[in-house]
């Protein structure tokens, strides 16, 4: 993998031909997104790790069925979400997902001005409300706002028409308002 970084499509092509190293590169590129998607849907880091790992292995063997030219990112996220949902259903009895707010002055990401201005308590209330949402809403909000997916990628990842993404996001936001105590 020397020289210019290969595009996803090139790596996918190599992986389809059985190049495991190329696939390893793809896993490295999307492991954060995959793990975080799984974490939003499951109840623990361990479950999320298992779900992401399993999804990447399954995706490798599904490569021959991967549509040439299609973006890899939403495809792998769809597999990850499916795997995580299946695991989440098996542990549904656990308490609602507890999303802990990132400390304002630590962590990998530099907080935005908005984040700096928010009181920690309010942020935690918001995350608590998101954590109580059904997984369908949690995933839409997570994709859009936490993982910063484009609408096109969201449509692929959610397996819906691009025009449906907005309505799903709107519905999830309404549910979030209801969780916050307001009218849906």
């Amino acid at each position: 993998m020397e020289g210019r970084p290969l595009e996803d499509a090139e790596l996918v092509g190599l992986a389809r031909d059985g190049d495991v190293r190329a696939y390893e590169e793809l896993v490295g590129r999307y492991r954060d997104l995959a793990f975080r998607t799984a974490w939003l849907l499951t109840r623990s880091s361990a479950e999320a790790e298992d779900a992401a790992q399993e999804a990447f292995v399954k995706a490798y063997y599904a490569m021959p069925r991967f549509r040439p030219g299609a973006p890899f990112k939403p495809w792998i996220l769809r597999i990850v979400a499916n795997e995580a949902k299946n695991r989440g259903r098996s542990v549904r009895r656990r308490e609602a997902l507890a999303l802990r707010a990132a400390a304002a002055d630590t962590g990998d990401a530099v907080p935005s001005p908005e984040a700096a201005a928010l009181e920690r308590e309010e942020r935690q209330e918001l995350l608590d409300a998101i954590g109580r949402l059904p997984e369908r809403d949690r995933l839409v909000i997570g994709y859009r706002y936490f993982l910063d997916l484009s609408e096109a990628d969201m449509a692929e990842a959610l397996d819906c028409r691009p025009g449906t993404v907005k309505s799903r996001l709107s519905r999830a936001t309404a549910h979030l308002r209801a969780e916050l105590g307001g009218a849906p």
Partner: protein
Amino acid sequence: MTTERLRGLSDEELGRTIRASGPAWPTTPSLASIVTERIGETERFPQLRPRLSLPSRRRTVLILIAATLLLAAAAVAAGLVVRIGAETVTVVPGAKPTLPGDVLSREVLGRAASSPAEAASRAGFDVVVPTRLGEPAGVWTGPTPPDAYGSAPVTRVVLAWPATPALPTIRGLPWGAVLMEFPGEANLAAKTIFEEGGGIQDVTVEGRQGLWVTGEHTITLAAADDRAPVELRVTGNVLLWQRGDLTLRLETSLGLPAALDVAASVP
């Protein structure tokens, strides 16, 4: 700041606030090397193609080795998950819990077809009919959802034959034999077998790996659209094998030799 302020925000403002309130993500594990190692392990045992939803790679390796040595015993000991084509088989240690009351019925099998040919035209694959069983008395097609890989929805086909003296009734069912045909590799059915009162045996059917399952167990069939999967009680003996791109599941009251004869008569 309180929830009142949040509720008062416009959708756009609320979106920005959510984005700025990102959770404290746990550290992402280094998945790349683990995934490639697992692929390497699976490549060494291609006949199993397991789905190992287990917590650690170490257990995965142990189970792969154990499954290769002696499928049945190792499977029971470890809680093995084996995948054959479109069907996942999970072996659970211990006694079986209360099984579902529902068994296979016409209602859950989908839409009736007049013949295997009509079912084939609906399903888009060549429906196979074991010559030893002759023409089936019932044929159904059932749509299943696209799997996580984004593949197109597929149609499963189910054939059933009435009981005869040579083909005893399957307990609880109105038939003597039921053959399910699943195309492709999508995960369309799941079987759970319990150590106590159940048996699982690695068999070879037409040179391909298969499983012979005895004792009451459960099968979960994927349902179309967003409907919940259907969990059913299985009372017959089941031979599960792959033939080309098809996963075949034959349920009868026959013993293994007779079931293998039926399987061998698939043209």
